[in-house]
């Protein structure tokens, strides 16, 4: 790569006692990218973030920041800033002092740091709360203060550790949009850790899916969703109907493991006709109205239970009785072959 990446992580390994939290991770994140690290808890994503921030020292491997090796450097010597999961606002300081802290540490004169802090607060629409203590703010407001505090020092890379985890759904969706806008406005690299696949898919340029301390798959949201490379990714990112090798052979007519997304399946009373369409018969177990669509659970005669998600207007057999005979059909192109890890 001719362009120097914002972050390059090589062979990064971290062991806590006998457990390996991060296992030889290699990663390159381009400047200005919104990069997400997605995975269940204990998958090593947060540890990678903390290794990049410098809160932990790696057992092996290196961390480079814009081509400069920062492995072994203290957090205060790294040009990255972090938005913490619990926000980590200083409870004894006012909102303004919290935001100005990084500037104060850097010796910025009083009036200038006040102005800059106020501007950062204004950017997150909290300038009228400058005099308050963090305890007097709501969760969403605190989150924005944390963001202002981390961005006011103009880092090259901003690390966000599940920053929206503590917010309720409505606020979270709102903040997702805001974060994305702020990232675009500032033009800096965001590394975003989350266990919420939807959040990751919504916001990210690229996503690394972590599993057991390794990167299971790395790609754009579309890649991950449409072409999950493994059973784990297919299952963790969205929901999938998984078929093992034997079922794939009999139902789909292909070798190896495969998956099909619920929304790629169609339920009909009669077997479909058309090129490249395949189907299997089964009986309806449950039909659930979920607002934007209808989720139907069907036991295929061949064995597996599959989930089908259909839009409301197309659910012609929404009134089908439980236990009724149905056909589940799909297009050949929507079948995704899963590559086992390491293959």
């Amino acid at each position, binding site marked *: 790569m001719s362009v120097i990446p914002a972050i390059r992580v090589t062979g990064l390994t971290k062991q806590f006692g006998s457990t390996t939290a991060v296992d030889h991770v290699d990663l390159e994140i381009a400047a200005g990218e919104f990069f997400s690290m997605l995975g269940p808890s204990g998958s090593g994503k947060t540890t990678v973030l903390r290794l990049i*921030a410098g809160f932990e020292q790696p057992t092996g491997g290196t961390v480079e920041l814009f081509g400069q090796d920062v492995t072994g450097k203290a957090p*205060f010597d790294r040009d990255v800033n972090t938005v*913490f*999961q619990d926000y*980590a606002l*200083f409870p004894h300081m006012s909102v303004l002092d919290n935001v100005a802290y*990084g500037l104060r*540490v850097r010796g910025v004169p009083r009036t200038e740091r006040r102005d800059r802090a106020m501007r950062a607060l204004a950017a997150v629409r909290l300038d009228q709360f400058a005099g308050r203590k963090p305890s007097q703010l709501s969760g969403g407001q605190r989150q924005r203060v944390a963001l202002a505090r*981390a961005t006011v*020092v103009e880092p090259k890379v901003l690390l966000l550790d599940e920053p929206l985890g503590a917010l309720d759904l409505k606020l979270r969706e709102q903040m997702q949009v805001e974060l994305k806008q702020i990232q675009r406005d500032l033009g800096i690299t965001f590394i975003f850790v989350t266990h919420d696949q939807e959040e990751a898919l919504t916001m990210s340029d690229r996503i690394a899916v972590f599993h057991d301390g390794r990167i299971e798959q790395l790609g754009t949201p579309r890649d991950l969703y449409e072409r999950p490379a493994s059973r784990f990714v297919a299952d963790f990112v969205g929901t999938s109907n998984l078929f093992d090798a034997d079922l794939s052979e009999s139902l789909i007519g292909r070798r190896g493991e495969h998956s099909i997304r619920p929304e790629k399946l169609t339920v009909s009373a009669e077997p479909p006709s058309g090129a490249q369409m395949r189907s299997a018969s089964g009986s309806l177990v449950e039909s659930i109205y979920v607002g934007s669509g209808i989720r139907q659970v069907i036991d295929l005669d061949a064995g597996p239970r599959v989930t089908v998600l259909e839009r409301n207007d197309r659910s012609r057999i929404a009134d089908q009785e439980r236990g009724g005979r149905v056909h589940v059909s799909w297009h050949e192109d929507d079948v995704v072959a899963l590559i086992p890890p390491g293959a």
Partner: protein
Amino acid sequence: MTTTTTPPGVTRPVPAPRRTAARRSSAFLATHPRVRLGLLLTAPLFWLGVVYIVALALLLVTALWSVDSFTGQVRTEWTFDNIVQVVTGSLYQTVTLRTLGIALAVTVIDVALALPIAFYMAKVATPRMQRILLIAVLMPLWASYLVKAYAWRSVLSQEGILEWLVSPFGGHTPGYGLAATVVTLSYLWLPYVILPIYAGLERVPDSLLEASSDLGGKPGRTFRSVVLPLIFPSIVAGTIFSFSLSLGDYITVNIVGGANQMLGNLVYTNVGAANNLPLAAAIALIPIVIIFGYLALVRRTGALDNL
């Protein structure tokens, strides 16, 4: 549906709770929180009132009495003689200053020692090490005060371990005296200073330290600007222990203090040997006044606001 099909007598209905007196009073209390609170607090408040307030008041009152030097009986007529004597007597001024100096020195030493130890325990040590250290800090509290004081007497003696350790480098044990008193008291009260500071540090989330470091704060700056303000009330709590315990001590100075005496010794002598309870009470008021002054000072700094 099931109730209609079950034949009567197969399942007995759950009997309604009996209207016992206990139940009625519970029901009354449940709906009258103020009465409940009042009953709950009566006993402790009574004890607080009797044991603390009345005892203090009695001390003050006793200080205003005098002893009839002829009959030895306490004369319950008001007089400020004892107070005047204690305030103006050069002996009391000297001993008060000495006691205050010792208490301050002990407090400063203890805080200086406790801060790094507590910080290591709370923020650096592994959970296992943390437990071991906590036990190590608490362990001296299991031993008798006298045993520890006599141990220091042995350590500080002319043929003690300290002399043996430092004499090859030309040093000498301070021997028995004020320095020995300060050292021994610092040792005795150290756990009482470490524990509140440790507890305070435990309450400071690690992420605050990381946030400070993340924003460019070097360890010193992080300590000054983040840790210290947050644990200041805990430090104050610790200093109240070491300061007030030192102010009132008379045994340690007796064991390792050489020929020196502190306020506690004067109280002890006047109660025991001299049978002059009013004068002893007047002397005992000195540390109380100092402690109240100290608390007032601390209050002004706002350290007690967040307790």
